[in-house]
């Protein structure tokens, strides 16, 4: 048993190394100068240099990218979760003809990943006059997040006991009142899961904003990181500082939501 655990710890150590070293390379590299990096690519900071981080953190460009990404992600998440929960309610707590057909239609969306549809979407957005507009990115992202939102919420809402609904209706609540006052509060764990999924998807998305925005003041963080890298190829240290700072929101969000994400994935696998 002890030997098995030894092997386990060794493997764990290797895994940590593989995962963490690239992250450390970025974070520590930001504390070096480009000259230091060029002479010893795998060295440690010595002496520590704060300039790179200070410059990036005080540049309006970085904060604008952050703001753009946040705005788009919030709009996309809100739209997907509000409309998705309404649809999931209709598809889980009403009996009507065509219900399964509607549901199948939405689940088909799981097979249409946003990447595949981007070129046609671009043409469509151009026709709607939504290019260079945050909504031009947020609305399609919301649309493509709807299927997974509905697929996760529907079984969850369905599992809430009928007795609760009967009791509410007997007490004189309208069906929509039941939805708003009882079902939604009870669905909070699932709502958090789908919100996290929609938010992260939007936050990290690259291809659609790449096509929709050509004016760099509209860029989102992923676009900005790639652009910064290609514009500062001679200044590795600054690119590393920029990249390190741009990782912070996603990593923070992940630390806060980690348990939720795992729980949500469990739910989605079990259907």
């Amino acid at each position, binding site marked *: 048993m002890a030997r098995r655990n030894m092997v386990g710890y060794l493997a764990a150590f290797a895994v940590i190394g593989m995962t963490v070293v690239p992250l450390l390379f970025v974070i520590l590299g930001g504390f070096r100068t480009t000259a230091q990096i060029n002479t010893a690519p795998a060295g440690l900071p010595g002496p520590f240099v704060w300039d790179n981080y200070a410059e990036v953190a005080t540049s309006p460009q970085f904060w604008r990218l952050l703001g753009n990404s946040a705005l788009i992600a919030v709009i996309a998440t809100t739209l997907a979760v509000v409309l998705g929960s309404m649809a999931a309610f209709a598809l889980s707590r009403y009996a009507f003809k065509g219900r399964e057909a509607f549901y199948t239609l939405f689940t088909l969306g799981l097979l249409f990943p946003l990447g595949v549809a981007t070129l046609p979407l671009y043409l469509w957005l151009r026709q709607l006059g939504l290019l260079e507009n945050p909504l031009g990115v947020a609305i399609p992202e919301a649309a493509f997040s709807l299927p997974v939102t509905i697929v996760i919420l529907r079984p969850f809402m369905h599992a809430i006991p009928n007795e609760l609904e009967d009791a509410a209706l007997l007490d004189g609540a309208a069906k929509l009142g039941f939805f708003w006052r009882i079902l939604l509060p009870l669905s909070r764990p699932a709502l958090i899961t789908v919100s996290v999924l929609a938010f992260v998807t939007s936050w990290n998305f690259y291809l659609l904003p790449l096509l929709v925005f050509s004016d760099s003041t509209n860029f989102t963080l992923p676009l900005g990181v790639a652009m910064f890298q290609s514009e500062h190829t001679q200044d590795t240290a600054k690119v590393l500082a920029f990249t390190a700072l741009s990782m912070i929101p996603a990593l923070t969000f992940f630390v806060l939501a980690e348990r939720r994400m795992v729980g949500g994935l469990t739910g989605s*696998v079990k259907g």
Partner: protein
Amino acid sequence: MMSAAITTRPPTAPVPHAPAAGGTRRRSRVRTRLELALLLIPALLLFTGFVLVPIGVAAYYSLFSWNGFGPLTDFVGLDNYVDAFSGDVFQGAIGHNLIIATLSVVVQLPLSIGLALLLNRKLRGRTFLRMVVFAPYVLSEAVTAVIWLLMLQPGGFIDEILRAIGLGGLVQLWLADSSIVLYTLFVVITWKYIGFGVILLLAGLQGVPPELREAAALDGASAWQTTRHVVLPLLGPTIRIWVFLSVIGSLQLFDLVWIMTLGGPANASSTMATYLVDHGFKRYEFGFGSAVAVILFIICFVFALFYQRFALRRDTAGAMTGVR
């Protein structure tokens, strides 16, 4: 709580009754219709307008030779499709997608299972380990691409490390050598996505009752036998979902490749999606690009249908036929 619900009801609403209550039956049916419309139509509009319509429109554009401006006049039928399939570059791109998909299943799946089994043990610092493994998954592909682009520079971090541990002979032009670039990208993809498989499988492992392992152990099964014959079969549904997501993801690979290599050198790392953006978007061949988009879509769709039919059927039988 109930009384609050009553006061928020619009004053014009009919007195609520159980649906079967005599005289108000018809009115409540109308009301139900209205409620359904109110609940479903916004989502349907969004979904149709931004998921279904663009794909339908693409199918239409794909029949024309069109630079994206002006009216569609130059009808070419299926020529765009024929051109795409007969071009070496696109054939190569499909091949690259297939290589990545195959490698993902063959390499990442055993790796994920191994890591998940490891992390499912009672090791000290297990929670921390799980977070570490999952961390790269939350980074965007763009950030991942930039990190590895810098590490893989000739004479950069990776080369330096290899030399330091006496493996200097392995140093390559990781991203500039056309016979290696695809495999370099695959390593980066694995780094980023392995955590997802691990978390998925860990979730699946939580569904394996400990009694089953204990029973197997009591019957004299070794740890390996228990894993192979008890645990793995029970992970089946999770593994099949992972394979599905992984293949679909591989077929649409774009961000990493675009930022790291633009599909180069000499198209050695192009994928269907980079080809699509390169031709459709950068060269203003929107009719042709639409055809490529439709092809990409059909490939994903056909794979999904077949996979659904033959592999996922058991697992999703409940989920897809709906709740009752």
